[in-house]
């Protein structure tokens, strides 16, 4: 009861200061369960990332941000009576949280993530960058985390998928020796149908030799930009339609979309090669980056009608 009267007082105070819509929004934001924990984590991760570029903590920041936005969105969809106010974070937990972040920052300043290492050590160090999320564990008790899991299970699973799959630069770097060959051979197989004189040179950066133009497929042509675009657009879709989505189907559509973008990339390079071997060679050289973005956008627009209705809950029946 004390909690509800405090809430009423807050609402009355807000009533004098803000218009109705904004007032209601502020109350809902304040009543988002575990909002301080999520906001603190996002703030700390962003601050670490800003102060220590060596950490390259884009994926953790993106993941935390997604979790916070989904949590806020869920709060806005529930009536006030069903929401739970979060107990305040104990000062000692807050001190531990800040202390652990300071320790991580000290390790980064000391050069833990700098320098060149063997593949195994480099992989371990890259994985250890996710430690940036570990201090959050001390902010709540075990029971509170269980409760958090009960409220936000689907939300944190989505955030965890974003954490391990957002902009997979390292996975691409590791896979490039064989993925580059697979990409090169796929482009060659398609291009050979239209330009029979095409030759394939199998190096680390595969080269297709045509009558008028040689195309070397460097790491930057691997389709990572298309994947980033798809991930951004899919995140927007996830936020907009979170309540109506069939979560399992959405996950399948997400990974299917990543595959679709890689296929779109094969088509992109093939088209560039084919057009480049006509009189439009100079245009291809000048506009191939812009053309790539247009093709990736078209690929997303084509993928959307194929999966959107299927992902919605109504389609389940």
């Amino acid at each position: 009861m004390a909690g509800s009267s405090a809430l009423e007082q807050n609402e009355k105070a807000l009533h004098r200061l803000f218009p109705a819509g904004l007032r209601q929004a502020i109350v809902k934001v304040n009543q988002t369960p575990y909002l301080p924990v999520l906001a603190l984590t996002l703030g700390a991760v962003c601050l670490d990332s800003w102060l220590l570029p060596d950490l390259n903590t884009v994926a953790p920041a993106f993941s935390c941000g997604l979790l916070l936005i989904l949590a806020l969105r869920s709060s806005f969809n529930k009536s006030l009576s069903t929401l739970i106010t979060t107990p305040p974070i104990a000062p000692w937990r807050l001190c531990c949280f800040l202390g652990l972040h300071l320790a991580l920052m000290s390790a980064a300043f000391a050069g833990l993530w700098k320098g060149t290492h063997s593949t195994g050590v480099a992989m371990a160090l890259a994985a250890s960058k996710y430690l940036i999320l570990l201090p959050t564990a001390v902010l709540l008790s075990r029971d509170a985390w269980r409760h958090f899991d009960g409220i936000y299970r689907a939300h944190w699973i989505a955030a965890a998928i974003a954490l391990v799959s957002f902009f997979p630069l390292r996975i691409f770097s590791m896979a490039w020796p064989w993925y580059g060959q697979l990409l090169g051979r796929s482009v060659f197989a398609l291009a050979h149908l239209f330009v029979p004189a095409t030759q394939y040179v199998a190096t680390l950066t595969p080269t297709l030799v045509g009558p008028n133009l040689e195309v070397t497929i460097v790491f930057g042509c691997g389709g990572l930009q298309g994947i980033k675009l798809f991930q951004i657009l899919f995140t927007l879709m996830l936020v907009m339609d979170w309540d109506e989505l069939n979560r399992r189907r959405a996950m399948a559509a997400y990974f299917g979309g990543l595959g679709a973008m890689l296929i779109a990339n094969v088509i992109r390079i093939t088209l560039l090669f084919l057009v480049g071997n006509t009189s439009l060679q100079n245009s291809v050289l000048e506009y191939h980056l812009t053309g790539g973005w247009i093709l990736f956008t078209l690929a997303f627009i084509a993928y959307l009608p194929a999966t959107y209705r299927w992902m919605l809950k109504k389609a389940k029946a």
Partner: protein
Amino acid sequence: MKKVRLAAFFLTLCLSSLCAYADHDHDDDRDKDKHKGGKTDATEMSVLGLAAASVLGAGSYLVYRRRARARG
């Protein structure tokens, strides 16, 4: 409800743009010297291209979503 969705939409767009901007230093610099696309270099093209493609893709999604809901 529409306002909430719109706010969530733009918040996510801002977050994504910030992340894209934050990591373009890491992923594009290596290819900076390999690609030259017209008047701007690959890094600028990458950020501008991603921004334009995101807006175009998001707009297409919103239009498709509205139509899909209108059809039921």
